[in-house]
Every structure is written in C-alpha cells, then in structure tokens.
C-alpha cells in the first residue's frame, strides 16, 4: 500500500471537494493496478487534455472550474499544453465567440489553480527544463518522449488526470519510465543513410514507431547526423504517434546512453535489429500522400510547436515571397516564441507573406470542423496521422516542399 501524505489524506477526506478527491483516487488506482507502492516527487508537470474544449468538451472545462473553486492550488510548477483556441487571435481565425468563451473559462480555471499559461506541447521553450534523471509528469506524448530522450528526465505517457493529481499533490506513481530497468534499449535501429532534413527524421520515426510499438529503440549511424533539437523533437513525436514510444536513445548522443552505454544497450531480451536506408525513407514520403489531386487548401507547420530557430528558418524561406491566395498557411508556436519572433521581425516576414503564426493551439486541437479544409500538406508525421483520421486528404513533405506548395498553390512531384 502507498504511504499517503497528510495532504493527500486531507484531499481524500473531501476537504477540497469531489474533483480533487477523484484525482487522488485515480492516482492511487493507477498505482494499485500496476502493483506500485511508491510515489516519486515531481520537479514540475505539464497538464493538458481536460482543458481542451475539442477533446474533453464542456465536461472537462466544468471539472476544472469546480476543481479551482475548491480553493486548491497546484503545488509544483505546472505547465500547460495547447487549448482549442489561439488565446489572442481566435476571432481572426473565425472561431465563434461562444466557443472561445467556454475555452477561456477553462484557461481561467487553470489560472486560478496557479498554472503557467504557456499553452504548448513544448513547455521547454517556456521554461520547463528538467534535469537528467528528474521525475516529471507530462500529459502529451510528444512532450514525454522528448523530455525522456533528450533530457534523460522521467515521465510515463500520463493521463491528464494523473498529471493534474501530480500538480495538486506533487507526486506521481513510481513505475514504468520512472525506473532504470524500464529505460533500456530494446531495439537497435541502424540508420545507413544521411538524414537530410527534419522531414527525414519524421519519416524515420513514422516508420520505426509502427514496428517497435511501445518498445525503446536505440538509433545508431555511421553517418554524421544532424541531431538538432528540432530534428529530435520530430523523431520523437512521430515515434509516439505511429507507435506508443515513450523513450528513444541515440548512440553516443542522448545523455543516458552516452553516460552508460553498457547499461542501456543490454536488455533482458536480445535486442531486435533493423537497418534503415535511403530506400526506406523515400518509401515513407511516397506512402504519406493521400491527396487525390494537386490542389492545396491548407499548409500546416508546427506539430510539435516550432522553436524560434525553426520560425526564423521559415521566415527566411518566405521573405519577400507571397503565398497563393487560395492557401491557408499556419505556423504554430508557443506564445513565448511568437513574442520572440515579433521582436526579431520573423513573425512579420511570415505574416507579410500571407501566413499566420498562431499560438496556444494547433491544428490537431483546434475545432477543425469550423474550417472548410479538404486537404492539408504538413511537415509533421504526427499531424499527418491525426489530420488524416479527421478525414482530411493529407500529404507529408519537408518544410521546403510545404512552403513551395503554399506559394504555388499546388502539391506536385519533386
């Protein structure tokens, strides 16, 4: 049985109302069904889904409003994921006022609880900097895999309710990726081709995620690869979308395997082995195209949210150019990055070209039924997966291909 703190017992007694009580009950139930007796103290958390009007509906918003009205406050720094609107530009995007007002009620509840209103799946760009080995709780699969892989932090693919419980109590059930033994590599992927773009990393993740499912892949390459933040963010997000991967290692680069290769290469089972070459990568680009014609309605960049460096890159590609009148181009970023981008002129370059830099939300969580897009071109394998599920004809390309399509108004062969 888990040793509860006095505070947790207080919450269970109903002192902070029913919602807080249910949060702690859920955390305890998760511990029970996973035979876990220990809780880990978290350094910070990121909460999400419950406040996404398009996902949790008014039910989720009401839950948060009631939780906030109990007077309870988050006990650890609590970052937030996207909402279903751009907090500043929702009207410009054509979101109905009543929808925005309901969503804003949820954000108000977050505020009342003491959350950080960064509204992004990349809280790292707004101050969430986990230390190597630190326990955290993240409610977005892209955040989890990047936090675990790049920083060596420790989070499970958490339900938002467990993250809310962790925000309120400061603790999370200690199992899964919180434990050393579950973080070892289980699949060795040899990359025998240079990965030339962020798109190649996304394609790699799309392909490998399907194969390894929930296991921990270890990547290795004799080529010198550009293992930038953006590229590893894309790799992680794709792995977490076609698979349910929570952690990957890159030989000699990511901190856990760099520090202790013997530990992270060896597993109880013999590692399965896969070789990826240029043919496999090209096949994925070919596969990821369900567009029936060449017409383009919507080009979407920013899943996960772009860093300021990526925004600069896009601004430079668009500088002095104009996107086609029939195309909507969105670049989604955290609001902290939008602010930075407007200080450096990059926001203005994108907007003057006809694009929209939107923040606090994304194309997966916006109520896409309010827009009449029939197709989308995206540089994100994760967005590809979700937006095709929504019924859009979807195509995947590199940033350059996406922006060219936005300018030409056509998707074509390269």
């Amino acid at each position: 049985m888990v040793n509860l703190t006095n505070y947790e017992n207080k919450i269970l007694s109903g002192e902070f109302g029913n919602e807080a009580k249910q949060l702690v009950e859920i955390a305890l139930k998760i511990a029970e069904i996973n035979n876990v007796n220990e809780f880990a103290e978290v350094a910070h958390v990121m909460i999400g889904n419950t406040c996404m009007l398009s996902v949790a509906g008014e039910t989720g918003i009401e839950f948060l409003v009631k939780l906030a009205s109990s007077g309870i406050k988050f006990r650890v720094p609590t970052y937030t994921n996207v909402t279903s609107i751009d907090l500043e530009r929702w009207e410009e995007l054509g979101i109905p006022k009543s929808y925005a007002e309901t969503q804003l009620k949820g954000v108000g509840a977050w505020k009342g609880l003491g959350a950080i209103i960064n509204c992004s799946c990349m809280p790292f760009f707004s101050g969430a900097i986990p230390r190597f080995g630190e326990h955290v709780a993240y409610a977005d699969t892209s955040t989890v895999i990047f936090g675990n892989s790049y920083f060596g932090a420790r989070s499970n693919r958490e339900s938002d309710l467990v993250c809310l419980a962790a925000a309120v109590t400061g603790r999370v059930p200690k199992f899964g990726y919180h434990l050393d033994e579950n973080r070892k590599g289980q699949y060795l992927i040899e990359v025998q081709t240079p990965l030339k773009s962020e798109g190649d990393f996304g394609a790699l993740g799309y392909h490998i995620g399907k194969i390894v499912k929930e296991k921990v892949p270890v990547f290795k390459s004799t080529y010198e690869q550009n293992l930038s933040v953006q590229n590893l963010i894309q790799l992680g997000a794709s792995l977490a979308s076609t698979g349910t991967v929570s952690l990957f290692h890159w030989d000699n680069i990511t901190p856990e395997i760099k520090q202790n290769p013997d530990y992270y290469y060896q597993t109880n089972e013999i590692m399965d082995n896969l070789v990826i070459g240029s043919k496999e990568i090209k096949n994925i680009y070919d596969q990821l195209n369900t567009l029936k014609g060449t017409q383009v309605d919507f080009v979407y960049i920013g899943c996960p949210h772009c860093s300021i460096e990526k925004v600069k890159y896009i601004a430079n590609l668009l500088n002095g150019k104009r996107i086609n009148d029939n195309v909507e181009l969105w670049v989604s970023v955290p609001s902290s990055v939008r602010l930075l981008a407007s200080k450096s002129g990059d926001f203005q370059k994108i907007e003057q070209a006809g694009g929209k830099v939107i923040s606090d939300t994304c194309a997966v969580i916006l109520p896409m039924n309010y827009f009449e897009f029939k197709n989308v071109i995206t540089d994100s394998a994760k967005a590809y997966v979700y937006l095709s599920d929504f019924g859009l004809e979807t195509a995947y390309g590199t940033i350059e291909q996406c922006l060219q399509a936005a300018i030409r108004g056509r998707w074509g062969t390269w």
Partner: protein
Amino acid sequence: MVKFKGRSISKGTAEGEVLVTRQPLSFFGGVNPENGCVVEKDHELYNICVADKILVMPTSKGSTGSTWILIRLSENKVAPKAIITVETDVIVTAGVIIGQIPTIDQLPFDPTQRFKNSQILMVNGDKGEVGIVR
C-alpha cells in the same frame, strides 16, 4: 449464476447485453461522444453503438484524449453500462473512475474470446466479478 473473478478497476454494478470486439478501441477519434457510436472506419464495430452495452474489449489504444471521451459518453448517457477488458490502461482507468462506469479486467480467461454478442452479463465493479445471467 456462474461467476468469474477478475480485478476491480471501477466500482458499481450493471447488467446488460454484451458487445464484444477483439480489436483495441481508441475512444478519442474512434467513438462519437455525443451518441456513443464507433466512427473509426477500419474498426470491426464501425457504426455500432456502445451505449448501454457491456463492452468487452482487449485494451484501448491511441491518445490520452480517450479518457475524456469516456467521461463525456457518461455525461451524455451513452456510455457502456460496464466495461470488461483483458488489461486496463491508464487512459481507460481514469475515464471509468470519473465517468463512473463499472469496469473489471484480468479475468482468468480472455473475455473477448469467451463472451459473445447478445449474452447477458452482470458486472460487479466493486468485487471485480462478472456473472453470466444467460
């Protein structure tokens, strides 16, 4: 009544007709929260509604957004009467506790093989038990 013991995930009792699937079901993107009907095109339950059924499934899959779809199903009174899984994950656990949908798992056999559509079962979430009514 023949009874089998599994594990309690969420409390409450319910009696109803089985709706069984052998494919993992993603509630987020896969089930319409307004009417409880399956909208995932490739799923074997496509266009069939889970409302008021004893839903028997292997496990859930996909995004953690599924938790809130389950809660909304309950709020809209189109949730399953009870859920029996082979193995319950965090996503379903959180959803059935807040949504108050009696749920059990870890029966001594695979329920997706054992139970058939239109059988009547009695699920006791408190005890983690299921009984065959007929």
